[in-house]
């Protein structure tokens, strides 16, 4: 298989030590599986592509990559660093409490240059409710250790709108995060996914979702506090020191091609959107037998691609870059979406500059109301 266009590689590690209550990712408890054949399969799947010349960013996520036995994780990274020789951003997701200085040192020396640490909250009650297995102190320790071994690009994830918590609790987490002086922070409002125990607790009335007004206030507070701390909002949920935006994720929002390997991983290249089987055993079997691990294949039409591109682009604070859009999709965005654009400009939810269309600040908390108008024609 030969691909020329993909610029990013995502690797899905389908294991965690234990499942968090809100989590709907494809991930299984580590102790039920022998991870070795799975990592071998990942490597085999990656080897099917000719990745070397084009891949610029790698992101190992999951699941919890850091729940893997060290040797396996290092072996995987070593292999990827070997086959992709032009990578400028190499991210590994790390769970606080699962990493220490020696591990981080090895990662760094193998070529990993960005860490994404799953923090979620700095309040122990919230961490407990979410089913996380670390403390706020673990987070600080991980960040200091990473700094010590040389990491200069660290990202933290936070969750807002956690049930039973108020705006003050969230402010505390935001301030703790900015105190750690990291380069990048993502803030996600908690969503209740089907099949999670959080959703079950919500449906049975054991917890109550944060009201919409508070949810919005938390979001607005995040924007304010993080911008104050020098982290500029560059996407609906993402903030970074200018120049250190996550290049890997920007590939997604630019709707450029990428390849994903591992159970449940999605790919977008050669005009096809595919998704691998999520079942770990099934995935390993298919790879071992030399079969295709993909389950779903979609071939979006040119118009569908244009719609996808618009929706994804609009999530960026820079919005749709008109000339980039034209080049990429062949359509003039102002023309294609004339009615929706006109409508939302007059509502004050979109603004047009000489080279872009973007959401206004007022539109951010209700962005889906605007984006949906770009989802089809």
């Amino acid at each position, binding site marked *: 298989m030969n691909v020329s266009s993909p610029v990013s590689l995502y690797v899905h590690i389908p294991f965690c030590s234990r499942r968090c209550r809100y989590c709907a990712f494809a991930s299984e408890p580590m102790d039920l599986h022998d991870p070795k054949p799975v990592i071998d399969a990942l490597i085999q799947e990656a080897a099917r592509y000719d990745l070397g010349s084009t891949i610029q960013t790698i992101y190992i996520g999951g699941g919890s990559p850091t729940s893997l036995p060290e040797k396996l994780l290092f072996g995987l990274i070593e292999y990827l660093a070997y086959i992709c020789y032009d990578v400028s951003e190499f991210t590994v997701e790390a769970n606080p409490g699962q990493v220490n200085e020696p591990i981080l040192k090895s990662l760094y020396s193998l070529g990993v240059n960005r860490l994404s640490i799953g923090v979620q909250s700095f309040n122990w009650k919230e961490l407990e409710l979410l089913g996380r297995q670390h403390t706020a102190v673990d987070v600080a320790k991980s960040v200091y250790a990473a700094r010590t071994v040389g990491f200069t690009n660290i990202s933290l994830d936070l969750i807002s709108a956690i049930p039973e918590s108020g705006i003050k609790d969230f402010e505390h987490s935001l301030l703790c995060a900015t105190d750690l002086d990291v380069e990048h922070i993502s803030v996600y409002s908690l969503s209740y996914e089907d099949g999670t125990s959080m959703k079950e607790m919500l449906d049975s009335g054991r917890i109550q979702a944060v009201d919409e007004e508070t949810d919005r206030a938390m979001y607005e507070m995040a924007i304010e506090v993080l911008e104050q701390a020098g982290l500029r909002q560059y996407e609906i949920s993402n903030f970074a020191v200018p120049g250190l935006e996550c290049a890997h994720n920007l590939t997604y929002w630019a709707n450029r091609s990428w390849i*994903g390997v591992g159970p449940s*991983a999605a790919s977008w290249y050669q005009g096809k959107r595919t998704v691998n089987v999520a079942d770990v055993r099934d995935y390993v079997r298919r790879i071992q037998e030399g079969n295709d691990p993909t389950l779903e294949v*979609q071939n979006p039409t040119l118009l569908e691609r244009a719609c996808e591109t618009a929706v994804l682009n609009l999530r960026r604070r820079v919005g749709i870059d008109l000339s980039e859009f034209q080049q990429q999709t062949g359509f003039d965005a102002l023309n294609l979406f004339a009615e929706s654009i006109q409508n939302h400009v007059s509502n004050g939810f979109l603004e047009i500059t000489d080279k872009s269309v973007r959401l206004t600040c007022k539109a951010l908390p209700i962005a889906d109301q605007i984006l949906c108008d770009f989802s089809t024609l």
Partner: protein
Amino acid sequence: MGTEHIRNFSIVAHIDHGKSTLADRLLDLTGAVDEREKMDQLLDSMDIERERGITIKASAVTMYHEFQGIRYMLNLIDTPGHVDFHYEVSRALAACEGALLVVDASQGVEAQTVANAYLAVETHNEILPVINKVDLPAAQPDLVAEEIEHIFGISKNHCFQISAKSGLGVADLLEGIITLLPPPKDRSIEPTAALIFDSHCDEYRGVICYVRVFAGSLRTRTKIRLMGSGRTYMVTELGKFMPEMTPVAELGCGEVGYVIANIRQLADVTIGDTITEDSRPAVKALPGYQPPMQMVFSDFYPGNNTDYPKLRAAFEKLTLNDASFSFTPQSSPALGFGFRCGFLGLLHMEIIQERLERENDIDVVQTAPTVSYEVVTTDGVARRIDSPSELPDRTKIEELWEPFVRLEILTGTDTIGGIMKLAEQRRCQMIKTDYLGPTRVMFEYKAPLAEIVYDFYDQLKGISHGYATMDYEFIGFEASDLVKIDILVNKQPVDALSLIIHRSVAETRGRRVLVRLRQAIPRHQFDVPLQVAVGGKIIARETIKAYRKDVTAKLYGGDVTRKMKVLKKQKEGKKRMKSIGQVQIPQEAFMSILDSSDN
């Protein structure tokens, strides 16, 4: 063939009592249908009839049967049971000498059984009572026979007991049709007079008239005259439904069949008109029919204004095959250009709606159905209006008249209390009560059509655990103390949300409408105030709060397809809506104003 060997009969009954299934068995017994072409309710050939399992349009079929060495021609007309299509039953009965009155052995006599039996008597049909579904464990044929005796005065010993499903007793019934029903009168020497009792339009052949020849005969290539319109046509084809259309050279006196004569549009033919021979016309036309009466009206607007011509074309096509549906152009200050449509009842409306959606790709917004009113203005002029929005200014109204019906309800004696209470709430005046047996009672009310045409039947079913049935018949317009409820959305009055209602309940209803609308109109990016005015005075307000947060937090590569689907659905939801100013009002909101229930 002389008329003494012809029998013309229709099958009439309450909904679902088994008319079409009985027709199947008669077709079997007479060998009219090939083994390979057999299917359940064969005469229900329209797609919507098959999907819903009900008959909408009457169908005629000719069968031959030998009895005691003589070949008989049997013309059967299967009729619909639903009250909306009552007129189809009267048309069928006028073309026959006999009627099989089918009664479900487990349900007994129901409201449409009574109504249809009366129609049969009025049209001088000989009635053969048929108790069907005797195979059901809950069947009580003897009890039902007593009911029939009590209500219709037909001896219980004359009832046929059959199972249309298994065929039990159907052979005896077939014999009864021949021996007990009268043949048509022999008027073969008189000038031709054939009654048009139905018609449909074929894309290629034009109008196909269903006829019953009462006098003389019809032959191909003769010039015929429609006595009502005076127009003349050349007969190009005559035939019988066997059940497919089968050409014959002549339709003799007493026979039932079809006529094709280069008639282009359904509108050119009046059902009930008499066909005669142009060169030797009949002296007098046959008694015709009252045209069916439209009971409910509703406005249809294209979701997108540019679809207006498409919507018109779609309606035109629908009227080609259904002359009882009508549409006229209509414009509303709030909703733009659309059409006012008239229907025989709610089921009829539903069917037209379904057709429209199925056969055309147009997003349509429909207003709540309403009955028509008569308004007398201060200058003494009276006129008919089919929509609350047409009501003149309050100060110019002298009197408002609304339609009344004679309502018949059949129910068990154990639910009398609940039903009387419902009737009272709906302004029904009791005319009489009749006990049909120890456990069954029949009420007769005078009722305002507006109170019973929408959700009354559902409530009736609820109160009686599904047991009560009803039937109604228009009697006339009468003055009532009515007022108009107006709704303001985002401070703008929306005429399509107006409602005409009795003064005594106007305030409660007005408040309720507001609550319904608050639930039915989606949130916007801004607050939407709602107000309700009764007789020009604002009596209540509600606010639909703006969206405060609606954004997907996480969207990375793998979620694109799924998220696009969700967003498309979100956008789709905006489609069947009408924007009024900046506010999007969905289809459900227009309908929600009719919901008069408590919660």
